[in-house]
């Protein structure tokens, strides 16, 4: 039901009629609390879509649930509510279906040093996915070489017998990407793909992701805490705060005309920002075990703190009324009472 409605929304907005390649619908992931703490609602109702050939950046500070969302999209954690949709089909969690799904959607993790088994050679690491899904094939070596060179490791044969500890961080991340590419995936979910890399290598890896999109038509969801990175690579940006997407739109919309006070605060502290005074958020850092009532951002919201919300007469709504789940496409851009007033 939700799917169809969203598709209609997309058509109305003049976008492609095909269902998004990867989507989350009302997705919630909660972890049982430990040591007397309540349940941690890491992902607390997210609608998100990644269209064919589209790169979406998921931005937010540490602990906002963006990595959990990425893992849920791959079926690595079961959502407590809501669904993951692949080409419009809900994700099937039975092991054979999940295995087929993981042939088509690939994960690139944050730390390339940890995501390669130190006892496996580059060849074994890249061939791993192929062996899982197709067993030993005659053309395995050619495909490993092909994947490595597509990931920018040339000539590939030179890397076959290397171990991860002999490679640089950037080369390791390329090996991980090659291991994902060998299965010809339709979507790549990259969780902070460049966060642990040197600044000089970051650009190369981002370039690689853009090239792959251009050559292979890959879709990608790039999780990052870096707005600058989102600006460079993404078509659309979703800003996440405490388990929810609070603002979504094209890069230009979100980054040059932010609507949500949280996005504005994030942008204002960028060094190259021209938004004037940096907004430093007050209040305690967000805790997914204690999500505030009303708007989840209200305790730290500069609009409410400055009294502007009071003047507009929405302060009570900020404190008591949940702005709701932002639809993945069409409709509002920001889950904020203040922004809706000025929408």
């Amino acid at each position, binding site marked *: 039901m939700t799917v169809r409605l969203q598709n209609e929304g997309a058509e109305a907005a003049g976008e492609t009629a095909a269902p998004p390649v990867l989507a989350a619908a009302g997705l919630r992931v909660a972890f049982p609390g430990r040591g007397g703490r309540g349940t941690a609602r890491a992902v607390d109702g997210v609608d998100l879509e990644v269209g064919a050939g589209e790169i979406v950046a998921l931005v937010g500070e540490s602990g906002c649930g963006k990595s959990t969302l990425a893992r849920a999209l791959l079926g690595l954690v079961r959502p407590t509510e809501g669904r993951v949709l692949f080409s419009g089909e809900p994700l099937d969690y039975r092991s054979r279906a999940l295995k087929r799904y993981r042939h088509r959607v690939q994960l690139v993790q944050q730390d390339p040093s940890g995501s390669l088994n130190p006892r496996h050679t580059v060849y074994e690491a890249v061939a*791993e996915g192929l062996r*899982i899904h197709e067993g030993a094939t005659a053309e395995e070596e050619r495909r490993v070489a092909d994947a490595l060179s597509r990931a920018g490791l040339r000539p590939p044969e030179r890397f076959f*017998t290397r171990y991860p500890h002999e490679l640089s961080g950037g080369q390791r991340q390329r090996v991980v990407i090659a*291991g994902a590419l060998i299965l010809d995936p339709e979507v790549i979910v990259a969780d902070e793909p460049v966060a642990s890399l040197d600044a000089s290598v970051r650009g190369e890896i981002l370039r690689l992701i853009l090239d792959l999109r251009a050559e292979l038509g890959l879709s990608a969801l790039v999780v990052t805490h870096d707005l600058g990175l989102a600006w460079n690579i993404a078509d659309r940006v979703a800003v996440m705060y405490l388990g929810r997407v609070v603002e979504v739109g094209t890069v230009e919309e979100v980054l040059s005309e932010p609507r949500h006070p949280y996005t504005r605060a994030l942008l204002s502290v960028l060094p190259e920002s021209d938004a004037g005074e940096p907004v430093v958020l007050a209040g305690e850092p967000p805790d997914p075990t204690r999500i505030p009532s009303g708007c989840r951002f209200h305790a730290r919201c500069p609009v409410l703190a400055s009294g502007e919300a009071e003047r507009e007469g929405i302060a009570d709504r900020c404190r008591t009324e949940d702005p709701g789940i932002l639809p993945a496409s069409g409709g509002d851009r920001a889950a904020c009472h203040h922004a809706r007033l000025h929408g």
Partner: protein
Amino acid sequence: MTAPAASRRAVVRARRRAALRKYTRSYAENRAGLFGLAALALAVLVALAAPLFIPAEALSVTGAPGERFEPPDAEFPLGTDTYGRSVLDLVVWGARISLTVGFLAAAVSVALGTVIGVIAGHFGGLASNVLMRITDWFLVLPTLVMAIALAAVMERSTLTIIIAIGVTSWPSTARIVRAQTLSVEARPYIERARALGGGHLHVMLRHVLPNVMPVVIAQTTLLVAEAIVMESTLSFLGLGSPGAISWGGILQDARNSGAISSGMWWYMVPPGLAIALVALSFTLCGRALEGVFNPRLRERR
């Protein structure tokens, strides 16, 4: 352009050889470990070669070559036993049973412990709880009593001893392997393997097992020492195979024939020393191996 698969494998083999050389060197730095290895090599060689220089009739109770309880002399360097057999021959022959039982019992125990430890560590949750409670139960059970009970109910044979030792000594291995499995499972490459579509078996066999193997090897070596002592104990208590000659069995014969009260040291001391030396050698090797695979232990020394 593509390197032939054969040459690629050769390169990987060469790298493995280099890694092995590195391990060998770091093992050789441990002199106690070298001593243990040399003593073991000697014991194994002697045990294997025993049939070449000990004729079958020298070990027969009826056709024994000497008189009863002869003190050490030129013909019998370690004297004779209650039937007139050479104690030296008996001790040498006894190494065969002791080492066989030690190795096989340790293998049974480590195999059980590794399978249970990896499964408990990998699956977690209910499976882990159930398996670990069973492990705890075996861990608090007095091993010797359990082994005696098992050896008493089953047919008296060497195989019974092996099984009795094997099924009572696995819990410590299971605990160690589970701990190691948990630490490996927390690494990002396990998540990558799962995201690539790898199932439980793939993760356990391709990623977890190779990474817990060093711990398992060191543990095996230590367990062999334990198994040899246990085998001697069971034989000494008269639960061993009646026909077989083992160190514990010799000690039992010595006690039964009053060797302790009549001061026939040559009958009791040699098998006792043999047990102590072989067990010590295995322990030294095991500790040295632990140091090779876990450099942090080496630094502390």
